[in-house]
């Protein structure tokens, strides 16, 4: 641990159940008349950003809301399918705030902060109330009450959903509230702006520099606090289930300005995605996990077996999940299902044109239940698969392969969601989050909205009331300097004038990342990644080609800036993974497994958050540590056998 830069999580004292309540009382308030004197910048308009901007506008702050899309409604939260968890216990099946807290800490493999997780569980119930009041059309029972389903292997039904479009509906609710504040004049919207730098004055976050993605102009905005709600960094893998414009640039530039980056190696790889088919693919498509309820996962026993699946007799098939995990079978948690798929493919037993896919076979379920029942349950998913792959899953087994999906790592924040830079907050997937080393299904939406609707309105007020930031304008020298730096960066990119496109380099980086910093990591592989990534970076800075003009709508310039940051973030991920010599949650180190090949945590040495501190270009960053304590949920082994 660094003594010079201790990480103080600022967890309030008292029993975990009372921390948030007493903290809310103890925090300072901003007088209503003073709220309008404060300006707050919110970057990103996903669930966290939109809900925060709307809530702060309602309170009376002046909010400047930025997004890279043409409309706030398009942020990637829109794509979440499954649902949102809340400890409502409407089903009378034994759920409670405490159980959701317990499940989340355990699901996170004991690498999250108890106090944060408890608060998340506590406010989860308010989120559902809020969203229903906004007119989010959640699924209902015949009696008119809200419907729930069990999700991701949870033992209680606590997931609320709006068909397969829960993320979209929640986002539209938050977006509606945001647009209402725009109309009221409390929020000013800045679409098609990309944040390229954070401006600090006297060590405190006081503004941002953005690039107008239409005109190419660099713009300065000043405020009393900056909220980063910019999502995760799964697109570092190039192919992921995330939207193609998702990026880590804003977070990364803040890291370089002094915000610590926590647990970058924690990534979630979702097991049921449509496999890649070729080099030109731009994205991987997620299919609901529910498919594993009726589908059986298998590969041929023999390596390089090129027969059609129908020609492979039962005796020559390996239903590896069922054999290895008789208790859970095909329903093992995401990380285990993903890792095993990779294992069999690495053995050369993968199927499909690339050899990186496994079968998900519904033949047995169709025989048992009939085609109609299967069509009723999965009709739309089968149709989607058929459309994308060209194969009919009713006739031939589906092929699936894991894909990067969510990142648990992110900017380090304390209990108040403030980063190590005063005045800079991180919300939603952008912070290192409440999910520890592994996120449970239907918990991402919950966290984004909890942060935006119910946490930041309090903690931001406390910060403003305590810090009393003095007024600043964009005329300050720090803004000028920041613009100049960004300008230099853009010019540097434009002037390379080589032969390789940003996408080509991104793909190259993605291949290394998925191979060596993906589902299974080894010292050897990680060291290889740490050697390879700088080489790719060198190639990038020597041979990149960006056509067109920087003072224009220029997609290639946008991409290049993001790839430049990924080339550094990727290295940090590898470094973090190398240092964490244990297996936990989404982070699996081949060196740390038990005799059955299961993940082995090292609680003695790694019950902590690793937060990285930037020390300068081309310098190895410093690994700082926030120890984690488990007062309520005692660490135990995760076993699914």
């Amino acid at each position, binding site marked *: 641990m660094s003594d010079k830069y201790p990480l103080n999580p600022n967890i309030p004292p008292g029993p975990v159940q009372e921390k948030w309540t007493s903290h809310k009382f103890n925090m300072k308030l901003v007088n209503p008349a003073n709220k309008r004197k404060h300006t707050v910048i919110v970057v990103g308009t996903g669930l966290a950003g939109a809900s925060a901007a709307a809530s702060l506008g309602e309170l009376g702050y002046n909010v400047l809301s930025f997004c890279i899309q043409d409309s706030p409604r*398009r942020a990637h939260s829109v794509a979440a399918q499954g649902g949102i968890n809340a400890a409502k216990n409407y089903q009378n099946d034994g759920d409670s705030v405490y159980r959701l807290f317990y499940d989340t800490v355990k699901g996170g493999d004991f690498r999250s902060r108890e106090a944060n997780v408890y608060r998340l569980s506590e406010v989860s119930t308010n989120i559902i*109330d809020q969203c229903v009041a906004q007119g989010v059309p959640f699924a*209902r029972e015949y009696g008119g009450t809200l419907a729930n389903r069990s999700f991701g292997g949870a033992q209680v039904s606590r997931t609320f959903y709006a068909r397969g479009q829960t993320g979209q509906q929640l986002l539209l609710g938050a977006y509606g509230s945001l647009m209402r504040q725009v109309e009221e004049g409390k929020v000013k919207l800045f679409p098609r702006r990309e944040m390229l730098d954070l401006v600090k004055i006297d060590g405190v976050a006081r503004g941002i520099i953005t690039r107008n993605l239409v005109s190419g102009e660099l713009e300065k905005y000043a405020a009393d606090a900056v909220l980063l709600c910019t999502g995760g960094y799964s697109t570092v893998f190039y192919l992921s289930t995330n939207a193609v414009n998702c990026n880590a640039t804003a977070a990364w530039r803040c890291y370089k300005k002094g915000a610590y980056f926590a647990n970058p190696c924690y990534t979630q790889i979702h097991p049921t995605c449509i496999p890649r088919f070729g080099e030109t693919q731009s994205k991987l498509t997620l299919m609901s996990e529910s498919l594993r309820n009726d589908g059986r996962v298998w590969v041929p026993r023999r390596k390089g077996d090129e027969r059609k699946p129908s020609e492979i007799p039962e005796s020559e098939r390996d239903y590896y999940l069922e054999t290895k995990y008789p208790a859970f079978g095909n329903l093992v948690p995401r990380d285990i299902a993903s890792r095993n798929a990779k294992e069999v493919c690495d053995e050369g037993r993968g199927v499909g044109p690339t050899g990186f896919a496994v079968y998900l076979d519904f033949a047995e379920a169709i025989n048992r239940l009939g085609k109609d029942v299967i069509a009723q349950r999965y009709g739309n998913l089968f149709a989607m698969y058929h459309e*994308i792959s060209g194969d009919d899953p009713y006739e031939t087994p589906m092929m699936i392969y894991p894909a990067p999906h969510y990142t648990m790592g992110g900017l380090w924040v304390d209990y108040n969601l403030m980063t190590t830079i005063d005045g800079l907050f991180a919300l939603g997937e952008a912070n290192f989050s409440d999910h520890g080393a592994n996120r449970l299904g239907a918990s991402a939406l919950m966290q984004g909205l909890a942060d935006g609707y119910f946490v930041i309105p309090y903690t931001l007020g406390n910060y403003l009331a305590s810090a009393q930031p003095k007024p600043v304008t964009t005329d300050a020298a720090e803004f000028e300097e920041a613009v100049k730096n960004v300008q230099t960066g853009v010019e540097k990119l434009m002037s390379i004038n080589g032969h390789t496109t940003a996408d080509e380099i991104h793909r190259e980086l993605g291949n290394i990342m998925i191979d060596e910093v993906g589902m299974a990591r080894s010292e050897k592989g990680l060291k290889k990644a740490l050697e390879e990534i700088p080489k790719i970076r060198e190639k990038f800075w020597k041979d990149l080609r960006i056509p067109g003009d920087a003072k224009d709508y220029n997609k290639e310039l946008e991409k290049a800036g993001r790839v430049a940051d990924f080339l550094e973030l990727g290295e940090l991920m590898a470094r973090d993974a190398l240092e964490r010599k244990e297996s936990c949650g989404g982070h699996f180190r081949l060196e740390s497994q038990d005799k059955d090949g299961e993940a082995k945590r090292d609680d003695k040495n790694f019950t902590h958050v690793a937060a990285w501190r930037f020390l300068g270009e081309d310098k190895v960053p410093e690994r700082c540590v926030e120890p984690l304590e488990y007062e309520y949920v005692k660490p135990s082994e995760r076993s699914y056998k």
Partner: protein
Amino acid sequence: MKVNLRIWRQPGPHAPGRLVDYSIDGIDPSQSFLEMLDALNEKLIKEGKEPVAFESDCREGICGNCGLVINGVAHGPKAACTTCEVRMRQFEDGQTITVEPFRAKAFPMIKDLVVNRSAFDRIMSKGGFVAVNSGSAQDANLQPIHKDDAEHAMDAAACIGCGACVAACPNASASLFVGAKVSQYTWLPQGKVERHGRVLKMVKQMDAEGFGDCSNHAECEAACPKEISVSNISRMRREYTKALLAGV
């Protein structure tokens, strides 16, 4: 496979635009239409030319960012999907494909195939919400909502705001977009309090943005990737009439 493309190129809002011919080989039928354009752009960059500007984000049909008119049809030849969900197997080897932007006065041109759809945001700001502040909600189950009503609301709420309805409409009308949003709240008790003001204000903004009037061609429903029914437009008119009567 190989395709010939005629793509609308326009360097900026005030510059003249024209269709430019391209051809691209080695396309995999499994590739999406946008991945084919990615490949074209990579080729253009290598040749030292400007790539075609177009927009997309989620590439799975939910964000509403992509939107091209392919051979005269918004979001291309396949029903109920967005441009990013169109696969190249929808086309024939050697086919000529014309690609144009969404054309409407209310969607001003930015570059090539990129247009500005902020008009939709401005319409939404007039009433696309229930005015409830964070933290002021009652328990979610206190107000039962009939399952069918919730389903109807969801049918209307499925709109992704892509603008294909406007692009496809012979009059460039935004009635389906506005109708869907107004309709969603008419099905829900939460929407009842502000119902009259909502429909009047949203329609007023729609007209102010310069969208055309509706002629009931229902081409919008046919082009809608979420298959939102024109009966939502009818519902909006009903709601509008009720608002007028309430004002009398």
